């Protein structure tokens, strides 16, 4: 449906898009993701015909949109802008009706069909309720939906969306993207620049990652959203895990801090959930030699360890650890300077493991964001023993775990001082 080949665009001497080639199939929702200034909006403007490329070709449905008169191109594709200069008080219905402009002749009024299409567009975007209000008097989110309604009324095979969810609250973000998905399943082809990587992964059939005016990667969200790609494109440290509810990739970005520690301590991490994934990513980003485990098979943490390419002991969730794994674990904990407990879940199967770890580790750090009650599957008994171990540990958050690890490691070099400060 859309074929972009070797696209070159420059603003003055500054290249904005360099050698960009993309193709979009009919009935596909393709997300453009990338950092600010990557060229997403520029690419959309070239696709829409608003901006002429300096080199390369753009074909939409086999024709070059830049050679079409605007009436023809506006029957082929509609654009949902990021915002629009609506500094005058047209009714919402009037604005949506403007979407019918390409289909009407100069001297005819709106036909019954035009009116029906406008009504449907208002209904679908749930803007019908305030159709008679002035566009000045609706909220930013409502205004965004009005623009979407206008594009629906325009009834084109291709829809281009520039940050359709940027000014929306969580609820309306989902609603808007559900609507776009509906259009796409009805056969519309859509290309959307989307800031939110999780939403992009959830709704797009394919993602195109742009950075610095070039395509870094493209393909299905699962294959594109990897820790490496996110690191390259956004220059950020992120943990990419699977959202347990939607089953799509979810990206947790961490503070960009690739300042490696000098002579970092070796760390072993035990834990669960996003906290553990965050700790792992953070340590990895700082160049700390890290091992992990036991991590439950198929969990967010096991995905994170795989993404970060860490040595990890993967075990069945809630099952007892095999003797072999227990041996490996003890070896790794001994080898590490510090052990981090990150939202550790305690079950009957690993209660013993915890005590064993506490006995052999030189230093302990605990990072907790969920209350222990929610992580305890082994009864009150376990609460007592966990509490005992946790008291030995230095408390930290995901944000300052690096500092805590370093301090704990330093303290462990002077065992006496550490014991003096402890109740045990």
């Amino acid at each position, binding site marked *: 449906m859309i074929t972009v080949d070797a696209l070159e665009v420059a603003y003055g001497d500054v290249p904005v898009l360099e050698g960009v080639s993309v193709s979009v199939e009919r009935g596909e929702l393709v997300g453009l993701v990338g950092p600010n200034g990557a060229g997403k909006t520029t690419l959309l403007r070239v696709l829409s015909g608003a901006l002429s490329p300096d080199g390369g070709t753009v074909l939409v449905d086999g024709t070059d949109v830049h050679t079409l008169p605007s009436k023809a191109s*506006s029957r082929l594709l509609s654009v949902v802008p990021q915002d629009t200069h609506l*500094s005058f008080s047209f009714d919402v219905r009037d604005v949506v009706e403007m979407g019918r402009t390409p289909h009407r002749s100069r001297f005819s009024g709106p036909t019954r069909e035009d009116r029906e299409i406008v009504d449907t567009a208002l209904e679908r975007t749930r803007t019908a309720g305030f159709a008679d209000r002035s566009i000045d008097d609706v909220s930013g989110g409502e205004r965004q939906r009005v623009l979407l309604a206008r594009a629906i009324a325009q009834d084109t095979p291709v829809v281009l969306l520039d940050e359709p969810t940027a000014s929306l609250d969580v609820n309306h973000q989902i609603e808007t993207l559900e609507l776009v998905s509906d259009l796409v399943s009805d056969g519309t082809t859509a290309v959307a620049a989307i800031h939110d990587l999780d939403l992009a992964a959830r709704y797009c059939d394919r993602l195109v990652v742009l950075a610095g005016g070039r395509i870094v990667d493209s393909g299905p969200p699962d294959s594109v959203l990897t820790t490496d790609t996110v690191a390259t494109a956004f220059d950020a440290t992120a943990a990419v895990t699977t959202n347990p509810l939607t089953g799509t990739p979810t990206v947790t970005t961490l503070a960009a801090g690739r300042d490696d520690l000098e002579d970092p301590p070796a760390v072993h991490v035990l834990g669960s959930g996003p906290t553990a994934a965050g700790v792992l990513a953070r340590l990895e980003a700082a160049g700390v030699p890290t091992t992990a485990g036991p991590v439950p098979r198929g969990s967010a943490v096991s995905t994170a360890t795989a993404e970060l390419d860490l040595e990890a002991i993967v075990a069945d969730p809630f099952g007892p650890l095999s003797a072999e794994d227990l041996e490996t674990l003890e070896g790794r904990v001994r080898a590490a300077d510090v052990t981090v407990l990150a939202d550790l879940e305690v079950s009957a199967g690993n209660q013993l493991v915890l005590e064993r770890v506490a006995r052999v580790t030189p230093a302990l750090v605990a990072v907790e964001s969920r209350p222990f009650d929610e992580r305890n599957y082994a009864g009150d008994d376990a609460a007592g023993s966990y509490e005992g171990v946790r008291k030995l540990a230095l408390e930290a958050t995901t944000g300052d775990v690096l500092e805590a690890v370093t301090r704990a490691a330093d303290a462990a070099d002077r065992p006496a001082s550490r014991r003096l400060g402890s109740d045990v």
Partner: protein
Amino acid sequence: MSRPARIAAWSGGLLVLLVAVVVTSAAVGPVRIDPVTVTLAALNTVVVPTGIAVGTATIPLLGWGVPLPTLEYASVFAFDVPETHQVIVGSVRLPRIALAATVGFSLAAAGTVMQGFFRNPLADPSIIGVSTGAAAGAVAAIAFPMLVPFGSLHLSAFVGAVGTAFLVYAIATEGGRTPVATLLLAGVAIQAFLSAMISYMLVHSGDSLRQAVVWMMGHLNNSTWSDVGFALPVTVVGVAVLAAYTRELNVLLLGEEDAHHLGVEVERTKLLLLAVASIVTAAGVAVAGVIGFVGLVVPHMMRLVVGPDHRILLPTSALAGASLLVATDTVARAGPAEVPVGIITAALGAPFFLFLLTRREVHSL
């Protein structure tokens, strides 16, 4: 109410108002005439063409006579009206009233289009220098009649106005695009230059200084049917063309890129709107001089009443502008001493506009 019905209702109402204002105006003056007599006398002036006769026209400068087809007219009505009243209404007051209505119609329509076009509430019909161009043409014709080849003051003002608009457009256009901001700035610069030229001409205008200054103040005295014959056809055709483009004008308000995506040929439409609005303004200004504030205030007033949709705003503003100028010109001529109407429109228009501003009624388009 559906939109066409709303447009028809508003336009019809304002048309009735215009007729009422015209009749009242024709009744007012040094000689008071009752409205019935005025109406009958006005109807007596209605003529229809009945045939074509061949007359003779003389080409200026060369003095050659050439045959020229002219229409023959016949009166439709023959009501019994006293001769003096018929002359006062038909030959003195009505031409002036008709011209006031035409000029008000053209300025308000052009002002509506310019405000929408520039997405700027301060825009008026002369924003790209049309009035200043007309003034330059008129002052040149008044002060240095030898230098102006086409003799006619109207034609000279009209050519000056349209020429200025074209010059500003040409300066602001680069690579097929005409950014609105550049147009505004080019308009300001050209106006400054033309003002200097006008001042220079005024300094050297000698005995014709007074005539030139009065022209620039905006006046409708000594209007004749031939003035109406000059301005009315241009205005009617021009406003009809603008009315056909009101939907594009609405869409252009969303911004040029959005308008392009909604099927509007942006640059072509902009050129057409600007050219026609300038020609309509030029037709009004050429016969009546620089009459301020009608083109600025009337669209704002009507926008408050009927909303921003140009499909209804353009016809209603034009009709309201016609009524307003007829009414203010009546004040201008009926007072103890005749005052140029431009002074009245500005003197009444400016305080009214300030009133709207302080009431926060006028803050945007």
